[in-house]
C-alpha cells in the first residue's frame, strides 16, 4: 500500500489523517465541530467517519495522535472520542486509543486551559510524568523546570522530547513506513523570549517526507502559525542551509486561510506576502503541488462572510490561488470538496509520481465505507 493524507471537512478546523505505507495511522489534530442538532450543518460527523476508517482497518487505535496546538478548532471533542489514560472516565470500549501522543511544549506548560484543551494537557502531562506514549516538541531546556517541579529530571525524559531541526525518532524514508517527520516549530529561541504563550505560534509545524519508489513527496503541515513565525522558520532554516526541509508538494495552508499567515495587511483583493512567505510559497512549492485550506469556502466579495474578521479571507485565497496557478498546481478548500453542498473527506494519495488528489467518493464507494443503520 502507498501512503495517503486525508483531510476532513470541518469548517475552520483541523483533523487530518496520514496513512503510512506500512499501515501506520497518524491523526494530526482532532476537532469535532459539527452541531448534530443542526440539519443544515454540512461539517462531517468526524467520530463516525474516523470510526468507519478504523473498522475498515479492523483496529481501534492510532499510532500517533498529534495536537499541533490546543485551540478548540484543533482539539474539540477529544475528551469524547479518545481513550485517555489519565482518568477512568475517559476510558471505554467505544473510545479510540492513542499509542503515542504528540504535543508542543505549550501543551505541557500552559496553565488555565478549559475544556478539550485541558483534557489533552492532562493526558500529555500524565504520559510525560509516567514516561511513555508521548512526544513533546520543544527545546528540552524549556521543560526542565516543569519536570523538576514534578520530581523528574530532564535526562530521564530527554528521549521523549524532539527539538526543532530534528527528525522524529522511529520514522525513516528507508524504513517500512517510508516516511520521516522534520520538526520546524516550536523552536527554542522563540520560546525563550515568550512571556505569554501564544498558542498559534507555539504550534507544531513539520515537514513530512514520503518515499515511494524513489520519488520523494513532501508535505508541510503549517498548523495555525502567522507570517512572522513563517519568516522566522524560513530564516532559521536557511541559516542552517536546510532549504530542502521547506520544499513541499502538499501545503496544509496555515490558519484556515487567514491573511495573517501571508502578510501584515489583508489587502483589498489579494494579500501581499512577506519576502519569506513569498519564497516559501512561490519557490519551495513544487510543480503541480496541492494546497489545502482546512476551512469554510472562500467568501464572495461583499458578502457577510467577507466582512467577517475570521478566516478564510478572500484575499488570502486569492494569493494562494495565484501561487497554485504559477506552479500548475491546485488550491483547494476542504468544505468545497467534492461539492460545497455535500462536502466529504478528501484524500491525497502519495504515488511514485508524487501527490495526487483523489476526488472524494460519493455513491456506492462512500456507502460501503460507512456503516448503515437499520431498525
Amino acid at each position, binding site marked *: 500500500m502507498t501512503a495517503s493524507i486525508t483531510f476532513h471537512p470541518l469548517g475552520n478546523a483541523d483533523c487530518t489523517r496520514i496513512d503510512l505505507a506500512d499501515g501506520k495511522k497518524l491523526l494530526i489534530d482532532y476537532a469535532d465541530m459539527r452541531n448534530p442538532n443542526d440539519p443544515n450543518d454540512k461539517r462531517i460527523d468526524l467520530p463516525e467517519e474516523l470510526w*468507519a476508517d478504523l*473498522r*475498515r482497518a*479492523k483496529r481501534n487505535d492510532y499510532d500517533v495522535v498529534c495536537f499541533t496546538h490546543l485551540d478548540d478548532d484543533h482539539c474539540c471533542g477529544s475528551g469524547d472520542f479518545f481513550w485517555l489514560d489519565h482518568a477512568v472516565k475517559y476510558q471505554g470500549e467505544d473510545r479510540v486509543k492513542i499509542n503515542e501522543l504528540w504535543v508542543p511544549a505549550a501543551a505541557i506548560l500552559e496553565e488555565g486551559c478549559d475544556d478539550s484543551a485541558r483534557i489533552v494537557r492532562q493526558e500529555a502531562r500524565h504520559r510525560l510524568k509516567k514516561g511513555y506514549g508521548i512526544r513533546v516538541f520543544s527545546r528540552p531546556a524549556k521543560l526542565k523546570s516543569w519536570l523538576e517541579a514534578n520530581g523528574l529530571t530532564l535526562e530521564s525524559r530527554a528521549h521523549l522530547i524532539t527539538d526543532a531541526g530534528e527528525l522524529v525518532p522511529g520514522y525513516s524514508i528507508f524504513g517500512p513506513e517510508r516516511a520521516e517527520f522534520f520538526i520546524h516549530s516550536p523552536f527554542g529561541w522563540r520560546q525563550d523570549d515568550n512571556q505569554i504563550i501564544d498558542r498559534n505560534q507555539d504550534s507544531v509545524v513539520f515537514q513530512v517526507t514520503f518515499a515511494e519508489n524513489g520519488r520523494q513527496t513532501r508535505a508541510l503541515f503549517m498548523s495555525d502559525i502567522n507570517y512572522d513565525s513563517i519568516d522566522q522558520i524560513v530564516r532559521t532554516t536557511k541559516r542552517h542551509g536546510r532549504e530542502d526541509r521547506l520544499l513541499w508538494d502538499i501545503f496544509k495552508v496555515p490558519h484556515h486561510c487567514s491573511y495573517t499567515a501571508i502578510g501584515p495587511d489583508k489587502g483589498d483583493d489579494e494579500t501581499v506576502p512577506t519576502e519569506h512567505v513569498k519564497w516559501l510559497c512561490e519557490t519551495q512549492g513544487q510543480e503541480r503541488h496541492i494546497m489545502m485550506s482546512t476551512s469554510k469556502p472562500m467568501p464572495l466579495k461583499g458578502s457577510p462572510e467577507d466582512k467577517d474578521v475570521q478566516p478564510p479571507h478572500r484575499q488570502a485565497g486569492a494569493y494562494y490561488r495565484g501561487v497554485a496557478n504559477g506552479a500548475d498546481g491546485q488550491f483547494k478548500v476542504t468544505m468545497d470538496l467534492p461539492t460545497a453542498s*455535500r462536502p466529504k473527506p478528501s484524500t491525497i494519495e502519495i504515488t511514485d509520481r508524487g501527490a495526487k488528489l483523489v476526488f472524494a467518493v*460519493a*455513491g*456506492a*464507494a*462512500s*456507502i*460501503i*465505507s*460507512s*456503516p*448503515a*443503520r*437499520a*431498525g
Partner: protein
Amino acid sequence: MPLHPWWTTFGTPVAAPEELNVAAARDLASWVAAGRSPGIRLTELRRDEDRGYEAVAFDADVDRPQDLAFPIKGTEPVAVLFPIGGDQPRVLALRDDFPDPPHQNWTPAGTPSSLCVDDRPWAEARLTATPADLARRIQIWLSKAASGELHEDARPPDPLFFKNPLSIVIPAQALADSDKPSELVGFLRPDNANMIITQLEPTGHAGGPRFVVLSFQAPPQAMGRLRRAPTTLAELAVELAPDIDLLKELRAAITSWAGSDNDNRRRLSSRLAIVVAFPVQAGDENSATDLRAFASFDTAGDIGEKLGVVGSNTTDDGDKGFFAIIGADATKQGDDVRIEPAEAHIAFDRKLAASISGRPSSDLPRVVLVGAGAIGSQLALDLARQGAFSWTIIDEDYLLPHNLARHSLFPWDVGGPKASALARQLCALLGDPVPAANCNVMAPTDEVRANVEKALAEADVILDASASVAVSRYLSDLDGITARRICTFFNPAGTAVVVLAEGADRSVTMRDLEAQYHGLHLSEPRLAEHLKADRPGLRYSGSCRSLTNRIPATRAALLSAIAAQGVRTALEHQTGTIRIWSLSDNFETTLVERRASPVTRIQFTPWTITYDQAVLDTLSAYRNSKLPAETGGVLLGITDVSRRSIHVALALPAPEDSRGSVQAFERGVAGLRDDVARAAEASMHQLRYVGEWHSHPRGASPMPSGKDLNQLAWLRAELEAEGLPAVMAIAADGDTFAFMIADSKAPGSAA
C-alpha cells in the same frame, strides 16, 4: 456333390501344401492337412497365375439347427483364395447350388458366392490371422447362415472379381422420388482415380474424366436385392425388369442427347454411370436405401451406338459426333456393354449427418446464430455435422489472421466476412441454404435490415455467441420475438464455457440469467477462479483495442464442442438453465448447473427492479442464522441506466464488525470495500453495489421502520451522484420480503 463350374476353371492343381508359394496358403493347407481343425478336411490345392491366387479347398462340417433359414448342407465345400501379393484371402462357397444368405461380398453372375467371414480391415485382421482362426470363422459363418443369424449390409464388390472398384458420391437430392431418372454430372477426382464425384449441375469443376450419371428409383419392395453383380448392361437390365425398363430409359436419354450443343456433346462423350436406389424395409420405417451403382467403360455415345439409337461420324476437329437414328434396333440389348459395380456413397447432408450422429433428423429449429467467432463457428459446424438446426448467421467481423488460431474457418477466407464464410460451410455440410448477414445485429445496414428482422422474428432460437454483454442484452430485449435466447461464451482465461438458456416460456430472460450467472459464480466455491484472467492479452495489431486472449485451439475446440452439446441439451428441456463447464489444467471437466431461478419484477417508474428466488433464499438463510437478532449486508447487482433496470444478483452477508440486536442492525464496514471490489472484478465489472438489505426480528413485518427510511434517504442521496436509485430489501417472518427503491426523482416502495 457337384462343385461350381467356375472352380474348374480356376488354375491348376498343386500337389502338396509345401508347394504353395503364398506363406499363408501354405500354413492353412498344412494345418488342415494335418487335421488340426475339427470338422475340416483338405480336398484340393490350386494355383491360378492369371488371376494371381493360390487356393486351399476343403470340406467344412457345419453346426446346423433342424429348421434351416437357408439350405446349408451338413458339410459344405469351401475354397480359401490367397492373393499371390499377400493381400486379404477370399472365401468362396464351392457348391454349385449354394443358397444366398446375407453377409456376402458381391460377385458377378456365374461365379461362386463370396463369404464375408471377417468384417475387420485386412491390415488389422492379419495381425491375428491364424489357420485355426480362419477355419473357425468359416464354420461359424456357415452355421449362422443356417440359423438365419447373418444380417444384411451393403455388399462391397469382391476384389477377386473387381480389381479396383470405383466409388461414386451422389447427392441425396438425386434420389428423390421421381418417374424420370435424375441426370447428374460426374468426374473422376484427379487425386483419386477410383472416386466419381457427382453434382446436380455442371459447375465447370476441374475434374478428371467425366461421367454422365443416371439415377433410378426402384419402387418400394419391388424386388429383392441384386444377387449377383451384373457385368453387362444386358444383365443389369434383366435384374431390374420389370420395374425399371433400363434399356428403354437409356435409349430415350441417349437419343435426347444426340444434339450438337455443348451440353449434349459433353454427355455423349462422357462415360455412363447408373445408380439405382432400392428402398429397403427396415423395421417399421421405410427409410433405408440400398444404393447400387454401375460404371460403364464406354462413353454414353458409344453405348448409344451399341444400343442402336445413335450413329457416329467424325467431326471436322477430329471429335466423334453422334446423330440420332430413327427406329432403334431392338435386338441390341447391351450384351456387349461392359459395366462394373461401384461402391455408392450418399453425399453428406443433414439426414446422413443426423443418422451418423445417432440423432433424429427432424431436429430442425430455426436458429439465428449471432457471432461467428471461435465459439460460434466451431459449435455451428459441430452441430451441422450432426444435422442439427436450420441456420442463419449474423456477424459483422471480417476474418483476420489471428482468428485462425481458434476459428473453424481457414486461411483462404481471411479478409472476408465471417458470417458468409461460415454460412458457406454450413450450407455445404447440410445441403440447405444458410442465409448470412454481414452486419452488427444491433445496427443492421439498410441492405440487410429486413432480412435480419425477418430471421429474428421467425427464429425458434436466437443463439448468441457474440461474447458481448451489449449484444446479449439487446437480443434479450427485442420486443415481440418469441425465440428462446441462448447465450454461450468462454470465460476470459479460456478454462470454462458457459451456456445460459432461457426456458421455453421466457419467464426468466437472458438479462435475468446474466444476473443469476454472476450470482452463481460468485457464490459457488467451484467457480472461484471462473472469471479470473491471469494471462495478459496478446496484441494482434497496432490498435489499442486489438487484444486477443491466449487460449489454445485445443481448449477452444473442446469447450466449443461442449457448448454445442450444451445448446442441444438446453433445447431438450423446457426450463431455463445456467451451465458452466470448467476444464482443469489436465482437461478434467467439471459441470456446475442451476435451473433458472424464478424472478420477480417490480416496476417503480421509471425503474424496474428484478430479483430472483435464489436471492430471497439467501436472505432468509442469513436471517435465520442470526435470529433473534437482526442482520444485513449489501446487495450487488447489475444496473443498466439506459434501460433503467436493476437486477439484484447477490446478497453479501454482514461484515464482521456489524452489530445486530433484536431492535436494530448496523451494517459494518470491515472488509466490505474489498469484498465489493472483488465481486466487481470477478464479474468483469458487471456487478456493482446496488443497495442494502437487512432482516427484521421475529414477529415484525417487512415494512420499513423510520430508521430504515432514513437509511434509504441516505442511500438515495449518495447514489444520486452516480445517477442511480437506492435499493433496500427487508427480510421478515414467513419468508416475506419488502423491496424498496428510492430515486431522487421518484421515490417509491413496494412490498
